């Protein structure tokens, strides 16, 4: 029974149920085919479309762990794609690897600068994170429009296209990029002391300050990283369609990312965080989106369907429901006595 108490049980259960329902409706759903050395299938599609959201959600997990929130990631996604594509479009040789390299460099550097700006507002000026990042959320799309002159920029550049729809080692490139970033962050937070210090700042900022933790630079770093990851997500998103649509790319991705973090069991009150949980949360959200088409749910009720699944997961994870479950089990098995430390 202890498996039910694991905090990832319900999100994982939701994921399994969704995949099972889809497979019953369309038996092909579970199949993964190898065509020309490339993996194809609905599950691979889910992974591929999850990549940008996972990148954004990983950063969001860290920000939320410090008691913060970053609403500006969607705007950073738009800016990063707009900058990269505009640079490539205006260069003399859009197909050269060098041009694409410089474009990616500029876009990510700018994303970093935007993250540093957010971090400055939050950690140095002490502005509430939701307000501080709201500024860039609103202004960011304006900046992207400025970059693209208000047009939807489209370009042809094979190397850049690879970022969004290429394959490497049979896997879609976006999946590999997101996977590598996820692994690096997991190692960075759990093999160094960064994860513990982030949690400590998130749980008790004053005690952490008195213990000599550099709370300011930790918070600052986390916002910069989040924007950097959002920048990478922006490159993938724009490379998929080879167009920079400043108004619509990455729209509401901040909300999906927050949702993924919450489904993954990280509390919005800060503190303990779970990157694995966030990964599951992202997969649940993206599987849901795909299920809507496969299960033949009319598009008009899609948001409702999404809401029902999310509410179910969050309610099952809520402390009150969890205690109720625990209490019922204890009633049926009176031998198991809670030991108070």
């Amino acid at each position: 029974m202890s498996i039910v108490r694991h905090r990832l049980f319900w999100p994982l259960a939701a994921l399994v149920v969704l995949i099972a329902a889809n497979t019953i409706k369309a038996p092909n759903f579970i199949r993964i085919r190898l065509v020309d050395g490339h993996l194809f299938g609905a599950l691979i599609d889910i992974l591929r479309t999850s990549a940008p959201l996972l990148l954004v959600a990983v950063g969001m997990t860290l920000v939320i762990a410090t008691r913060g929130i970053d609403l500006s990631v969607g705007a950073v996604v738009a800016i990063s794609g707009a900058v990269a594509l505009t640079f490539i479009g205006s260069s003399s040789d859009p197909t050269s690897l060098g041009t694409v390299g410089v474009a990616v460099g500029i876009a990510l550097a700018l994303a970093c600068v935007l993250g540093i700006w957010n971090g400055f507002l939050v950690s140095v000026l002490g502005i509430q994170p939701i307000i501080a990042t709201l500024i860039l959320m609103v202004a960011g799309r304006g900046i992207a429009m400025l970059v693209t002159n208000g047009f939807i920029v489209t370009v042809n550049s094979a190397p850049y296209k690879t970022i969004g729809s290429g394959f490497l080692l049979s896997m879609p490139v976006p999946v590999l990029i997101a996977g590598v970033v996820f692994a690096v962050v997991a190692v960075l937070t759990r093999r160094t002391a960064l994860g513990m210090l982030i949690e400590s700042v998130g749980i008790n900022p004053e005690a952490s300050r008195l213990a000599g933790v550099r709370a300011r630079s930790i918070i600052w770093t986390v916002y910069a990283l989040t924007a950097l990851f959002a920048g990478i997500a922006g490159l993938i998103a724009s490379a998929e369609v080879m167009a920079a649509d400043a108004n619509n790319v990455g729209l509401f991705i901040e909300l999906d990312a927050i949702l993924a973090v919450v489904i993954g069991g990280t509390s919005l009150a800060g503190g303990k965080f779970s990157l694995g949980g966030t990964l599951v949360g992202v997969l649940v959200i993206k599987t849901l989106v795909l299920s809507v088409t496969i299960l033949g749910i009319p598009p008009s009720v899609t948001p409702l369907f999404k809401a029902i699944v999310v509410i179910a997961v969050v309610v099952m994870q809520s402390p009150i429901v969890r205690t109720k479950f625990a209490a019922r089990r204890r009633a049926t098995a009176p031998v198991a006595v809670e030991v108070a430390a």
Partner: protein
Amino acid sequence: MTTAQPVVQMTGISIEFPGVKALQDVDFRLLAGEVHALIGENGAGKSTLIKALTGVYRIDSGTILVDGAPRVFSGPAHAQKAGISTVYQEINLCENLSVAENIMLGHEPRRRRGIDWPAMRRQAAEQLAQLGLEIDPGSMLGAHSLAVQQLVAICRAMVVEARVLILDEPTSSLDSEEVAQLFRVMRSLREQGVAILFVTHFIEQIYEISDRTTILRNGLLVGEYLTTELPRLELVSKMIGKSLEVLEKLEEAPKRTTAHAAGDTPLLQAVGLGRRGSVQPFDLELYRGEVVGLAGLLGSGRTELARLLYGADRSDAGHLELNGEPTRLRSPRVAMSHDISFSSEHRKAEGLVADLTVRENIMLGLQADRGWARRIPRKRADEVVAKYVELLGIRPPNPEAVVSNLSGGNQQKVLLARWLATVPKILILDEPTRGIDVGAKAEIQALIASLAAEGMSVVFISAELEEVLRLSHRIAVMRDRKKVAELVNSEDVGMDEVLELIASGKATP
């Protein structure tokens, strides 16, 4: 006056929280037209008694009579309807509303459609005038000083024609001019026949304003006294507990005297160090291997002084020298880099990180010092943690236990372990033995003594005077936010001498 029936009569009140007897068989009464001081150290049960009266807590046994009739209130709002109003230490008003709105909130005069604004302003002005206050009812509350806000809060409490006014530490953030203004209002209310329950930590204020005094200690009633018949010295010793004779017998351990030679440079020297509104400028020296005790009551400025020495607060007067070098401690980090450690008295709020494990909490100080990139190897961390779990007897001896599940005493030990693990040269301990059992207390005292013998310098703060006397080489006495005296500890320095200094600020003639 004493023959009249009390407005409030509480008899045999007991309240128990899980594991804690907050109040045991406490009697308390309030008469009309008196200011009644309720005093006691932290955890004495003052707030619990107030909350029992106003219905915030349910009483386990005992009776509450209001005007001779038994009453049980369901909460502060219910109590207020019966004429018992409370003004809390933190002002519960809306800064973005006007003074008039704040006073009348919940009691707005109404017309058929909505609030009668002119009538409201008029009534608020009348209320203010009744207390002799000249505050513009139309002005924003946030534009006024804390003192004025406090007075508005009292005015608000009186709107319901309160016959009992409870003031929970109203003076803790006021300066002397503002306190005088508050007292004028309290006196005028007393003349109108209001019974005032006044909680304070300032001794002089008790004697200035109160008619009678009730002292609580550890949830027990010590007694009720006419303030004028209770000498300051007796008041302090009753608050701290144990009669003077008993205390002197306790001091059998050999006294410790100064540990440094005459020409030594102090390891730490504060010169006129101070911070406005927190602690008045003081001088303090700390030599290698020396324990300096800070004696004083809660709110006397002992914690504030310690925070300045650690850079937890920034000073705005004087300066600090470390090994004779002027040094500015801009933050705790800077202090740590000079090998200074500070264990806060507020274990939960400023000490432990509740959801982390024992191991993580102990390693936090060391790890913060190293920065995030160079994680302390697990093997080394396990060694350090095992050493201090063993040394301090932390129970359960499980480094993976989440610290919030430990008992208070063990949490305190974890906090102490964090700071000992950083191997400081100067260790500032604010109430390191509060809330832990006698055995553990003695262990920690012995540990501090042996650390000092090995050369560590310690600033030791405790509400328990006997502890300070037993451990310290020198004792700085704090009173009303000011360092009033410094004693070199020796065989002939006794409890009574320090108590006298705490009580009156002057040495015995």
